[in-house]
């Protein structure tokens, strides 16, 4: 533990006896906020692109009669239009949000509603342009983050559980589920669930997202046919891309909720200024 970069990070105690810890270096903070904005644009432009053909398949090609997932609209028994999500053989009525939603007072048939897509109108061409430009920003930002993280030791500190954390995995899970958040020195490092979640996101989900996106490109398929094959074909890659997007949204929802319940101000201050409060230190207090 003595060699851990966490313990080398600047730390100070203010006049009120509060311990402050410089949790997030500038590069990490910038990368975090750029990533947040870029992912939002990618999600919304991605839903715009999905709307052009709101169905998913497995394998190389589209089996139009038999999609794995489809968001459409049809006539309900009462003769009224309704939005329908079909997953395999099961159908769900999603009127108002998916398949059929209101846009400026009129009902429109579109998979994802206009408030969720970029641009708001059905406009595949512009959606694609947003998506591909911001995909580059995601990759460049991710490369800066990973390079910095690797050489500064931040990546190891943030993503790899320490030995004692693995030994106390069960207890840590329980603490986390009870929404008990550590204070003092223990708050200087992420807990084991945080580390593993970020590990899966940073080294699993986000790279898989980029690779599955590339696997859909006919140009990439010619250059690197193994990539599309890795996902089991272009349509599988498209489905994986969609599922990974859903998992990233799930991560963001849980992430934001936990930021809220574990101290919104302290967390936000940490990610904006870098300084994170470890609480009042009993020994250090006057």
């Amino acid at each position, binding site marked *: 533990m003595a060699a851990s970069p966490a313990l080398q990070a600047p730390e100070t105690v203010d006049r009120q006896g509060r311990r402050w810890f410089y949790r997030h270096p500038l590069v990490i903070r910038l990368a975090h906020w750029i990533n947040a904005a870029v992912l939002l644009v990618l999600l919304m432009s991605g839903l715009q692109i999905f709307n052009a053909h709101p169905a998913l398949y497995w394998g190389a090609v*589209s089996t*139009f009669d038999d999609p794995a997932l*489809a968001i459409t609209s049809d006539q309900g028994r009462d003769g009224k239009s309704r939005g329908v999500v079909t997953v395999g053989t099961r159908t769900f009525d999603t009127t108002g949000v998916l398949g059929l939603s209101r846009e400026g007072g009129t009902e429109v048939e579109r998979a994802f509603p206009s408030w969720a897509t*970029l641009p708001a109108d059905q406009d595949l061409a512009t959606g694609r342009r947003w998506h*591909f430009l911001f995909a580059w920003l995601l990759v460049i930002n991710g490369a800066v983050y990973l390079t910095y993280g690797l050489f500064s030791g931040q990546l190891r500190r943030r993503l790899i559980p320490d030995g004692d954390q693995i030994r106390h995995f069960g207890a840590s899970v329980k603490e986390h589920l009870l929404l008990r958040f550590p204070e003092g020195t223990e708050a200087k490092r992420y807990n084991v669930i945080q580390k593993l979640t970020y590990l899966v996101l940073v080294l699993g989900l986000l790279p898989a997202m980029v690779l599955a996106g590339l696997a859909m*490109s006919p140009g990439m398929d010619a250059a690197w046919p193994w990539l599309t094959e890795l996902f089991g074909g272009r349509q599988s890659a498209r489905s994986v891309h969609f599922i990974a997007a859903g998992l990233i949204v799930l991560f963001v929802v849980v992430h934001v909720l936990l930021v809220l319940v574990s101290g919104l101000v302290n967390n936000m201050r940490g990610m904006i200024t870098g300084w994170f409060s470890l609480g009042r230190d009993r020994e250090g207090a006057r």
Partner: protein
Amino acid sequence: MILHRRNLLTAGAGLMGTALLGGCDRFAGSDAGRQTLQVGEDANQYVQRLLMSPTTLAREFPAAMISPWFKPNGTIDPPDRAYRALAAKKFAEFKLTVDGLVQTPLSLSLADLRALPSRTQITRHDCVEGWSCIGQWAGVPLAEVLKRAGLKPQARYAVFHCADTLEYAGGGLEGGDGAFLGRPGHPGAVRDAYIQLAAAEDWGGAPTATDAPKDDWGQGSPAAEPEDKRTPIRYYESIDLYDAFNPQTILAYDLNGKPLPVSNGAPLRLRVERQLGYKQAKYVMRVEMVESLNGIGQGGGGYWEDRGYEWYAGI
């Protein structure tokens, strides 16, 4: 102090959100915005061509993977009188014109084209909308045609002029005022109509009447367009020499071992396998070699390119 900061954060987040959602569309509609968004396309073309060579082939598939139904998209039954007249005679009078910056302009019948060296390939067609189909194409490599015509040194692009009218200049298909013309990238009513049409066709998956080969080359349709004084905008596409001389770049006359159906582009369609579906021009009547795309349509290089889609459709 803390409260103040919290308010600031909340207000800031709200402001950013509103600016992002509302501002994005305005940004994308401005010239500077379009140029910025263009950067992604340029980067994609540059990097993809670093990763491949001019002769890199798209993947080819075994016959067992051929899709039972090859989804037609875009124009599936050209309304044009001249085209219908050709179709009525099973394209016996069809001539492909090869001109522009060539040493010897050519005029080739289907029989001429079939007499040239041919290539057969089973490839995957990837639509910009997201779906894919696998089909077997047979045709003459574009390189074989261009070799016979002989390129002038300035020739840089092959432009494909097609038989199918998509709209009329100054008045769209739906009698609109043509306001979207001259504003590439702006969502036009015609494009939306086509996208919706294409999406609507997906469900059910039953072939449309035009798919049945017996209906394809036959009766002139009674629904042929009336004589029209407006200027038709017919489909056009373009590729550069990098793709033009790729062995898989063919002018296809057969799909799955049979003459190309009208719905899939009879009698001749382009296959440029490393790019998306809208590059695969159907109903090709003329190949024009040019130095620059500036004089073609609105300069974007293709019908959809002039309406906001990327010229480089490798992604």
